């Protein structure tokens, strides 16, 4: 064999393909980082200039905007009696307050009701979605005849593809009245309706990942259990589900993340009043819906604007932490435990 046949060759196409793939991959990483940086940068003014100058809107009682009539007098009274306190700026006290009135004469940026609203709606959604999604996944992977499986899996996954505005619309028009007729509470749109509607968006996510996790449980384990004289149900409950636990845990975490971040459904179905109440049947306003509803009308660079970004940062951090837990804890620790490596 001639020696130069084994000589290193320069393959241009391969080099270009490799570089393009690398650049694209790092580009998406850069995008995420930049979004991260941007959101936090817009939040920062709250923390670094926490004094009255931040609020660029002069307090003029005659021109103020409020959400309700009774608010005008209340706010007018307050600003007369306490014109030198911290209201109107994004101080720590104001931010942790219980009232969200960002465009009143003395703006109140209490995000507590919003945070609570997000948790409340997400909790309801997850409580609905988790059992339904897991049982459905168990059914399609362990019990369903082939035709039912082939019908149900795509059907539920199509649910994930329904635009959330359509789900929100459905909740607003149909579901809200339906649930109100059943329970007979006062407010047609409330946390409960929002949570139920939100579960439609969460179910397919949890279902699909859980189904994958269950299908990945080796058939040999199922056979071993059945060969020991366990029934199908016992096998599913004591062998298949435990072996799929890491995947199911990750599915639930991602479902919570989705519920927390989902905007359109909750904007349409929860009634959007920032009320601090423990009741499930009163309107709530979530963090995501607040951003969705107010960002378009806010004055650029003003305190309200910064506070909305603060809310965005909180949402961002929350989902980031959830994903990190799903990744680190589930992939590394639970996999080890359940797969015994």
């Amino acid at each position, binding site marked *: 064999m001639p020696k130069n046949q084994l000589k290193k060759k320069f393959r241009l196409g391969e080099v270009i393909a490799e570089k393009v793939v690398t650049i694209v991959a790092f580009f998406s990483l850069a995008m995420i980082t930049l979004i991260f940086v941007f959101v936090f940068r817009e939040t920062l003014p709250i923390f670094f200039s926490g004094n009255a100058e931040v609020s660029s809107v002069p307090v003029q009682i005659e021109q103020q905007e409020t959400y309700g009539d009774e608010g005008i007098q209340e706010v007018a009274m307050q600003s007369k009696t306490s014109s030198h306190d911290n209201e109107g700026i994004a101080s720590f006290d104001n931010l942790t307050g219980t009232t969200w009135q960002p465009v009143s004469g003395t703006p109140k940026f209490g995000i507590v009701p919003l945070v609570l609203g997000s948790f409340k709606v997400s909790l309801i959604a997850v409580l609905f979605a988790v059992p339904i999604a897991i049982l459905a996944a168990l059914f399609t992977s362990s019990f369903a005849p*082939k035709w039912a499986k082939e019908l149900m899996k795509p059907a539920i996954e199509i649910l994930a593809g329904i635009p959330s505005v359509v789900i929100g619309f459905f909740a607003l028009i149909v579901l809200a009245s339906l649930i109100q007729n059943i329970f007979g509470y006062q407010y047609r749109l409330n946390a409960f309706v929002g949570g139920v509607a939100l579960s439609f968006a969460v179910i397919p996510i949890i279902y699909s990942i859980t189904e994958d996790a269950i299908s990945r449980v*080796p058939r*040999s*384990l199922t*056979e*071993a*259990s*059945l*060969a*020991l*004289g*366990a*029934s199908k149900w*016992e096998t599913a409950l*004591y*062998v298949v589900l*435990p*072996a799929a636990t890491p995947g199911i845990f990750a599915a639930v975490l991602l479902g919570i993340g989705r519920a927390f971040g989902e905007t359109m459904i909750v904007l349409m179905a929860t009634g959007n009043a920032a009320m601090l109440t423990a009741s499930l049947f009163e309107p709530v306003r979530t963090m995501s819906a607040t951003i969705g509803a107010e960002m378009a009308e806010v004055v650029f660079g003003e305190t309200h604007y910064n506070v909305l970004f603060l809310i965005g940062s909180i949402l961002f951090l929350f989902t980031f932490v959830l994903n990190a837990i799903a990744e680190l804890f589930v992939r590394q620790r639970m996999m080890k*435990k*359940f*797969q*015994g*490596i």
Partner: protein
Amino acid sequence: MNELKTKIRVENFNFYYDKKHALKNISMNVPEHRVTALIGPSGCGKSTFLRSLNRMNDLIEHTRCDGTVVVDNVNIYDEAIDVVELRKKVGMIFQRSNPFPKSIYDNVAYGPRINNIKEKKQLDEIVERSLIRAALWDEVKDDLSKSGLALSGGQQQRLCIARAVAVDPEILLMDEPASALDPLATTKIEELIHELKEKYTIVIVTHNMQQAARVSDFTAFFYMGEQIEFDETKKIFTMPGKKQTEDYITGRFG
């Protein structure tokens, strides 16, 4: 052969995968407390036959069978038979060891727990007895909470045997139990099979003819879905009655 009690009586058994006729008119009397080996080339139907004995084939869609398999005077393909109860009586060891991703203790205790044995002391006894029977006790007794998957391949397979005997079966079906193991672990499993036949009736599928010769009392030779010959192992390996059997054993085909 007459003095031996028959444990499993198979008569005119046929099995079909969709349109493929996988087992053709099999008839065989499996004697109690003996090891019966099923040999033959890949795809000859020996594993299918083994899985028919505890109706594991029920799990595969588009299969059907006819004929009878009688275990202790009961036709196990009778409609009134509870498959779950049948499988408690007829245990199975698979080709690849498949311990649950649980501790050694929980692996062995799984079957008894399914059978509603809840008491800790009773479970402890069953686990110890089963592990002793599977010749694994001495190696794991100090670390029963360790994951079953952390054991070596041979130990895992013995754990599976312990798990199977924990539900007190009468018959053990083994589907090439040593094919994924090294020679040392294989020897251990073979010795174990020898001991187990005191208590159980064993049917074993094997690719390894030396193994069949070493562990079994009776041997059935399968070829293309048919049972060519069934006789005492000694006879099959020294003076087989059929030309095909002889050809296979001497390595002329298969």
